[in-house]
C-alpha cells in the first residue's frame, strides 16, 4: 500500500513506509545520506558513521564525481559493505528557499518528497539524517554507537551541536565556534516522525512532548573547503532564502568572505587550527584537537552582529 503517491505518477518513487509494507523494524539506528558530489569528503565522513550505526542508506542525487563508487569503496575498506545500501534518486530537487516553497510537497522535485522517499528505506527503530560534509569525531562515534541501543527503551529525539570547519589547505583550517548549531538529527521511526513541508525546506515532525536528548559540544564538524568556493553564487545571485534561519547561512557567507580577504582573525568566534606535519587538518581537529579544548567550546547562540541584522 502506497503512503504518498508521487505527483508525477512514478511508482518507483512513491513512498511506502515500512509499517504500511508490513515490515518490522529491527532494533538499531540507520543513517540516511542524501548527497550530490561529496566524493572528496566521504573518506572522512563515512568510516565513523559506519562504526556508529547499524546501517547506512546512501542516496545519490545526480553526482558526477563518482560519489556512489567512493561510498562503496570506503564501506568495503571499513569491512562494512553489507551495511551500506546505495540508492539513486535521479530527479532534480528544488533548492531550499523560494524554489522549494513553489514546489508541491508530493512532487518528486520537492525536498519533502525526497526526504520521505529516502527515509522510507529505513528498517531500524531509529533513523538519523546526516550530511555528506559532516565528520564525527571518534568519541562522537562512540557516543552515537551507544545511543543506538540505549534509546531502545524509549522514544526520544537527539540533538547534536556541530561546528563548521573551513579547510584552507591540508594543514590549516578555521573552526567557527561562535554559534550553537543545535539541530535534532536522530528520530524514532514512525508515522508521527515523517517529513512535511516548511517554508524554506522540509521539516521532520515530532510528537508533542517527546523526550529530547542533547549531546555534548565538540563531537561533529561540518567541513567547508575554501577552494570549492561554494558561496560563489551568493555573490552573483543574491540569497534565495526567506529570513527563517537566515542568520546561520549569513554567518557561513561572512566567515567565507573573511577568510578569503585575510580578515578571519578580526571577525570574532573563529579559531585557526594548524595540524602537525603529515596530518590533515580534518583528522587533527576531529581526532586530537577538539577533545582537548576547554568547555564550553561555544558560549553564545548568536553573535551580536547577526542579532542586529535579524532584528532589522
Amino acid at each position: 500500500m502506497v503512503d504518498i503517491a508521487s505527483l508525477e505518477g512514478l511508482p518507483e518513487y512513491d513512498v511506502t513506509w515500512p509499517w504500511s509494507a508490513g515490515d518490522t523494524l529491527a532494533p538499531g539506528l540507520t543513517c540516511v545520506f542524501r548527497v550530490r558530489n561529496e566524493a572528496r569528503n566521504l573518506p572522512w565522513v563515512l568510516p565513523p558513521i559506519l562504526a556508529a550505526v547499524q546501517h547506512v542508506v546512501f542516496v545519490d542525487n545526480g553526482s558526477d564525481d563518482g560519489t556512489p563508487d567512493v561510498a562503496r569503496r570506503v564501506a568495503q575498506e571499513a569491512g562494512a559493505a553489507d551495511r551500506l545500501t546505495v540508492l539513486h534518486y535521479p530527479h532534480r530537487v528544488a533548492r531550499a528557499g523560494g524554489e522549494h516553497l513553489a514546489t508541491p510537497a508530493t512532487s518528486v522535485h520537492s525536498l519533502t518528497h525526497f526526504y520521505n522517499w529516502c527515509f522510507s528505506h529505513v528498517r531500524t527503530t531509529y533513523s538519523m539524517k546526516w550530511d555528506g560534509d559532516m565528520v564525527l569525531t571518534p568519541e562522537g562515534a562512540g557516543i552515537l554507537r551507544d545511543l543506538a541501543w540505549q534509546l531502545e527503551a524509549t522514544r526520544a529525539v537527539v540533538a547534536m551541536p556541530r561546528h563548521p570547519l573551513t579547510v584552507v589547505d591540508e594543514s590549516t583550517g578555521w573552526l567557527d565556534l561562535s554559534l550553537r548549531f543545535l539541530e535534532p538529527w536522530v528520530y524514532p521511526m514512525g508515522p508521527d516522525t515523517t517529513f512535511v513541508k516548511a517554508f524554506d525546506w522540509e521539516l521532520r515532525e515530532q510528537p508533542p512532548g517527546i523526550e529530547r536528548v542533547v549531546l555534548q559540544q565538540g563531537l561533529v564538524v561540518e567541513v567547508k573547503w575554501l577552494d570549492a568556493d561554494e558561496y560563489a553564487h551568493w555573490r552573483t545571485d543574491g540569497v534565495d532564502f526567506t529570513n527563517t534561519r537566515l542568520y546561520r547561512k549569513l554567518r557561513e557567507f561572512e566567515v567565507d568572505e573573511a577568510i578569503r580577504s585575510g580578515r578571519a582573525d578580526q571577525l570574532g568566534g573563529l579559531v585557526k587550527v594548524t595540524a602537525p606535519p603529515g596530518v590533515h587538518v580534518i583528522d587533527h581537529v576531529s581526532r586530537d584537537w577538539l577533545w582537548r579544548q576547554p568547555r564550553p567550546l561555544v558560549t553564545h547562540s548568536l553573535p551580536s552582529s547577526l542579532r542586529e541584522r535579524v532584528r532589522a
Partner: protein
Amino acid sequence: MSTRRVVLVVGSGRSGTSTMAGTLKTLGLHVPQPEVAADATNPRGFGEPRWMVDLHDELLKRSNVQVSDARPRAWLDAGAISGDHATRERVTAWLEDQLTGHDELVLKDPRAAWFLGLWRACAERCGATTSYVTMLRPPTEVVASKQTNYGRMGAGSDRGTVTRTAAWVNMMLHTERATRGHQRRFVRYADLLEDWTRPVFALGEAFDLAAVKTAMAVDIAEVHRFIDPSLRRSSMSWDEIGAPPRLRDLAEETWQALDGLADDGGDSAAAHARCDELRVAYDDQYAEAEAFAHSSVLAARREAAARARDEAGPQGATGRDVADRVPHAVRAMVPPAARRGLRKALGRERGEA
C-alpha cells in the same frame, strides 16, 4: 603500537568478577590502589579500586540509577552523563596516572557496566586498548547468592528475587550489547572454578596481555591458592525464586543465549540477533510491568513529596500553609487592620475588587 591495555571485568555481581579480577592481578595486571577492603561477602577481596567505586557512586547518583537497576531506560540515563567533558577529563587524568608505570590494568566494579563508553573513550585518550571479559553465571545462582550475601529486599513475602531476576536480565543483555563489536570474551564462572588455566590463557592470547603470556610459575601457583572451587555454593530453583513464568522463561532463554557466547565461535551474528530479540522482549515485558504497577509509582511519588515537605519544616512552609493551619474561628478574632498587616507580611495581599 601501544602496549597499554585496560581490561574491564564486567557481568552481574556474584558471578565471579572478583575471582577473575583477582586472578589477573595475581598474574601481574595492575589493580589501581587502594582497593575496597574485603568483607564477609567477599573474603578474598573485591579487586575494586576505591577511586573507581566512588566515581561510579557519584555518577549513578547524578543519573538516578541504581547499581542493580532493572529499568531498560536506565542505560540512557547513565549514558547521558558518560559524555560529560569534565568527567572525561577526570577519568583520563586518573587513568593516565595509573598507566604510567603499569601498562596493563584490570578494572572491576559492578557499577562499571553503566559507564563502559566513558571508560573506553578515556582509555583511548591514553592510547590504551580496552577489552572486556564478561563473567557468566546462571541467574538462579546469582539471585541465590545475592539473597544470601546482600539480604532480602523486602519484609514479609519477599519478592526481591523477582526484582533481582529482572535486574540480572537487564544488566546482562545490555552489557552484551554495550561490548559487542569490541575486543571481548565471555567466561563461565563454573569453567573458571573448574580449571581456570584454560579461560585465562585464552584471555591472554585474545587481549595480548604480556602479564598472562609471560606468567611465572610462582604466580600460577598463587592463583591456584587464590581460587577456591568451594566458592560456588549458592543456588535456588526457579520455584524458590518465584519469578512469574514469563520472566522466568526470559531469564532462562537469556542464560542459554549468553552461555553460548562463551563457546569457541559462539560470539556470532546469529547469537547477537538472538540477544537483540531477547532485549526487545525484556523492554516490552518491563514496560508492561511498569504500566501494571503505575499506581504504586504514583503513590511513592506522592509519599516522597509529602516527606520532602515535612523535612523542609516550618521554614519551608509558605504563608498560605501557616495561615491555613490556623482555624477559621481563630483567624476571625484577628482585627481587620491587623489581618491586613499579617497578609502583607505573608505576601498575600488581597486585590481591591
